[in-house]
């Protein structure tokens, strides 16, 4: 039997993503990759994987996955309603998010709904046994490349796993939820802030903008007050000679509403970019839902760099602070039966 997780019911938009397909933008190749780099990194660390391992990015509602391998360790990260694990001869049991779990052949993992965010992550210890395309497993579904057949998962897909059995060791969980920050989204002005009037720039950082329904892995169109261009739109004020679009670039076309460009963004574009989201806050944008409101606040490049370094240090501390996960009561009966049948006795280390 092939070592695999089989999709018995697809979620809404589940794709394999790693940290991105870097280095080919000059050929027009978007980077794709995780919308929330922090969530994927935590999920990989919980599964014991290097940060660059591809995991399943779950959009809105997760899939049901049948375990077709002797054992597999999975980690779930994100604000999921309780997921369920059920076996052929066992009642469904809830599984918490933000921790790892050991699953056995024949069990079905029913991943929960995401509540209050747009993305969550599922990783497997050892990763998926799929061939990278241009150095990455990130799915870019618009071109049908990467991940599993270049597309979101569908019922019947069997995701091949690199390991036949889960590695040994305890299950781990996040000490406390990672703080993504809650103030304004930090931005750095430019590269074309001079295409906007002073009033237009002020509108952008003072007004509230709402995520419209047109929000996906490519980017988010915001609704809110119109940002004034410096030169009238019918005189070319919203046209530039196309140039490169970095992660988090904020285009403002002639209609005057900002579009923040994210993982699946085009590599170049011809609308002026008023600002660029500081990389520290890209994971927050990757989690926004339609209807949510944000403010933008400008910081200097040096400040943006420092914020990102501080966040990375906090992320490493969160990973160093993982705790051994034990269910309430201290003894994991499933583990007891599955792993300690030799002498029938197990000691609960945490209550020593």
């Amino acid at each position: 039997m092939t070592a695999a997780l089989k999709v018995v019911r697809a979620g809404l938009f589940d794709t394999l993503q790693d940290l991105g397909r870097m280095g080919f933008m000059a050929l027009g190749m978007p980077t794709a990759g995780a919308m929330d780099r922090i969530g994927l990194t935590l999920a990989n660390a919980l599964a014991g994987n290097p940060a660059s391992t591809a995991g399943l990015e779950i959009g809105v509602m997760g899939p049901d996955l049948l375990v077709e391998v002797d054992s597999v360790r999975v980690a779930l990260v994100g604000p999921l309603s309780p997921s369920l694990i059920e076996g052929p001869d066992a009642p469904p049991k809830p599984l918490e998010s933000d921790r790892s779990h050991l699953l056995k052949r024949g069990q079905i993992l029913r991943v929960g709904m995401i509540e209050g965010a747009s993305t969550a992550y599922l990783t497997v210890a050892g990763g998926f046994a799929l061939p990278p395309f241009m150095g990455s497993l990130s799915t870019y579904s618009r071109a049908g490349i990467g991940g599993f057949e270049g597309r979101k998962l569908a019922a019947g897909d069997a995701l091949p796993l690199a390991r036949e059995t889960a590695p040994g060791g305890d299950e781990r969980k996040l000490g406390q939820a990672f703080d993504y920050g809650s103030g304004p989204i930090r931005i750095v002005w430019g590269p074309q802030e001079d295409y906007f009037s002073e009033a237009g720039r002020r509108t952008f950082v003072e007004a509230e903008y709402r995520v419209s329904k047109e929000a996906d892995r490519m980017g988010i169109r915001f609704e809110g007050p119109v940002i004034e261009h410096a030169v009238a739109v019918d005189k070319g004020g919203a046209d530039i000679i196309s140039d490169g679009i970095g992660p988090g670039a904020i285009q403002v076309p002639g209609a005057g509403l900002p579009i923040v460009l994210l993982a699946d963004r085009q590599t170049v574009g011809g609308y002026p970019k008023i600002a660029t989201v500081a990389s520290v806050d890209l994971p927050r944008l990757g989690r926004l839902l339609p209807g949510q409101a944000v403010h933008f606040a400008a910081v200097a490049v040096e400040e943006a760099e420092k914020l990102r370094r501080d966040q990375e240090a906090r992320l490493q501390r969160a990973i160093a602070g993982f705790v051994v996960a034990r269910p309430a009561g201290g003894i994991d009966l499933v583990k007891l039966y599955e792993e300690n049948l030799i002498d029938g006795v197990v000691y609960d280390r945490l209550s020593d």
Partner: protein
Amino acid sequence: MALHTAIVQARDAGEIPGIVETVPTMRSLMVTYDPMAISRAELQPQVDALVARGLPAGMKSRQVTVPCCYDDPEFAPDLEEVAERTKKTTDQVIADHLASSFKVYVLGFMPGLAYVAGLDPSLFLPRRSQPRVRVPRSSVAIAMDMTTIYPFESPGGWHLIGRTPLWMFDQRREQPVFLAPGDSLSFQRIDRKTYDRIAREVEAGSFDWSTLVKSK
């Protein structure tokens, strides 16, 4: 383009740490860097030094022909509006598009999308003020002084005046991206029947692409 090559060479030689990638365009070069490895204040003088050192040059070029069907209104939803705004007949718009001497400058926006300059000046128009949410794959479009061909269905703000049966990106091909910077390009008008035939061959992977390319 030359600075792009110089930076990639310097990065690969280990001379500049922290560069993620670079994107050359007609107006500028975007350099993406990892703030965990280098700061902008450290990076900028190193890029400036590369410019001062002198840049590598030159690449060879090809003459490429792209068949295009302008006749079906589904393929060319903006043709009449372009004709109206440029005060021409639709046939004149098509003739001027066919007569333009195009050159591929930059690939970008998405895999295989070429920015092709050289459009006849009488056809210059700004982009649409509200981009379309969905532009069909292989649409041929114009905006400003350029033409382009959409490699995938995607959002887009250019004026759609025709469609080619070719795919600008096909991962089954050894070189998935058809056009390259520096290519000279001209369009060849085809009718709907020819479009359908070529489209079937492209889809089946049996189309002979070499007939469209001549070395200069």
